[in-house]
């Protein structure tokens, strides 16, 4: 086992930290928990409502991280996204197992206060990412935002959403499709507005803090998505 001081682990990028975890470095695990526990527990609590269930889900999330750290695929997801996807899947399973009501519709509105109000709490995340997502969600119509959040944070199927919202299933699907497509466009615009420098930094964060280059010509590497098939089955 390599020896990695807590101070050094603190300075590692997410992906490098995950690699250190895969090598069995306990300090890296502690740093990782400190870095992500608020976000993971916050997502679990948002989806499960119940604190006890949420803590179980958050703890299981980190257990999955420890187990699968060596298999993380940095080409397909940022570490943060990967961890949150694991948490989401576990939360959906937990809620369904307990037959409780996942993300009741009335719970959606509090998720979207003015983005700036949330800034001080967003310590583990890159604030610009969080603000961009919340602003983009805020720019959807109320109907689109509700169905998108019910699907994403609630884990509801289109049929369930249709029943809950009292709308035809075709309408639910249409709102989901339009909402997600518009969200993608909004986030794409936001990304472009970040400017070259920030976009480059974002790309770098999404990588393993590395870049591949050919002589004289740099080209980006390894930096996109990676779902855990356990949490998402898309290719």
């Amino acid at each position: 086992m390599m020896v990695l001081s807590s101070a050094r682990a603190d300075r590692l990028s997410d992906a490098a930290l995950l690699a250190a975890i895969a090598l069995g470095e306990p300090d890296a695990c502690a740093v990782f928990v400190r870095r992500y526990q608020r976000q993971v527990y916050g997502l679990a609590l948002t989806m499960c409502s119940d604190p006890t269930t949420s803590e179980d889900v958050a703890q299981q999330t980190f257990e999955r991280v420890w187990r699968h750290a060596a298999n993380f695929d940095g080409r397909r997801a940022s570490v943060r996204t990967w961890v949150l996807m694991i948490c989401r899947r576990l939360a959906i399973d937990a809620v369904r197992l307990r037959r409780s009501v996942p993300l009741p519709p009335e719970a959606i509105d509090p998720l979207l206060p003015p983005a700036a109000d949330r800034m001080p709490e967003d310590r583990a995340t890159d604030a610009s990412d969080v603000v961009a997502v919340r602003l983009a969600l805020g720019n959807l119509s109320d109907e689109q935002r509700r169905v998108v959040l019910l699907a994403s944070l609630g884990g509801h199927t289109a049929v369930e959403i249709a029943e809950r919202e009292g709308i035809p299933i075709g309408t639910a699907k249409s709102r989901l499709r339009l909402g997600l497509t518009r969200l993608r466009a909004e986030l794409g615009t936001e990304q472009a507005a970040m400017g070259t420098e920030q976009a480059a930094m974002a790309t770098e964060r999404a990588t393993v803090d590395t870049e591949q280059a050919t002589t004289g010509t740099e080209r980006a590497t390894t930096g996109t998505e990676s779902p855990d098939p356990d949490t998402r089955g898309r290719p």
Partner: protein
Amino acid sequence: MTDLCSVVDDRAAELALDIVDEPERTELLAHAESCERCRRTLDDLADTADRILLAAPEVEPPVGFESRATAVARDVTARTGVPAPAKPVRRSAVVVAIAAALVAIIGGVAIGGIGEPSTPAATNAPALGGSGELASAAGDHVGEAAIVVGSEPILVVSLDDAKVGERYECHLVFRDGTTIEVGTWAPRGPNHTWSIPIDRAALDAVQLVVADADGSSVATADLT
């Protein structure tokens, strides 16, 4: 375009949000796996769907959560063992971690998934190759270097206090004294790490030399 392509088009948002029930979900994803058009459609939307999770607020977990979650890590390690580096020599932690990340990434290509702990790929399993500490002419530690050996070898270099705006050239030196330039690197900040694919023949290199734009040596690392 097949009938399944039409279904994927219709249900792309639901697939991206992972709310399609089985067995349809598996059927559509299996189709997308082999259909570049559908795969691209899903990837585009899935990236957006994943980012929605950031909208959830951060919440301080209950007291003691951190220690409990960390204790689980010790249990997992005790039960499952720790994947050891392929070459157990003393290495710098940072570069080992980064290089190991690349090993995992490259391994992911060969193994093709994340759901379960991987088994070593039958061939081309990535491993850590030669590595060493970068030292200045005065002998001070100024960074690290490591080679990840996979289907395409990659050189990983980390230079402490790298100067933003400076361009660094990396040269590999062979036992017979010959050298090859492997690339030029423009750090975006101090402690920036850089990686570059290298030719398999370069695996025989015994030393890395990092030079500034004037060609003056900044640091060297013996790759062992």
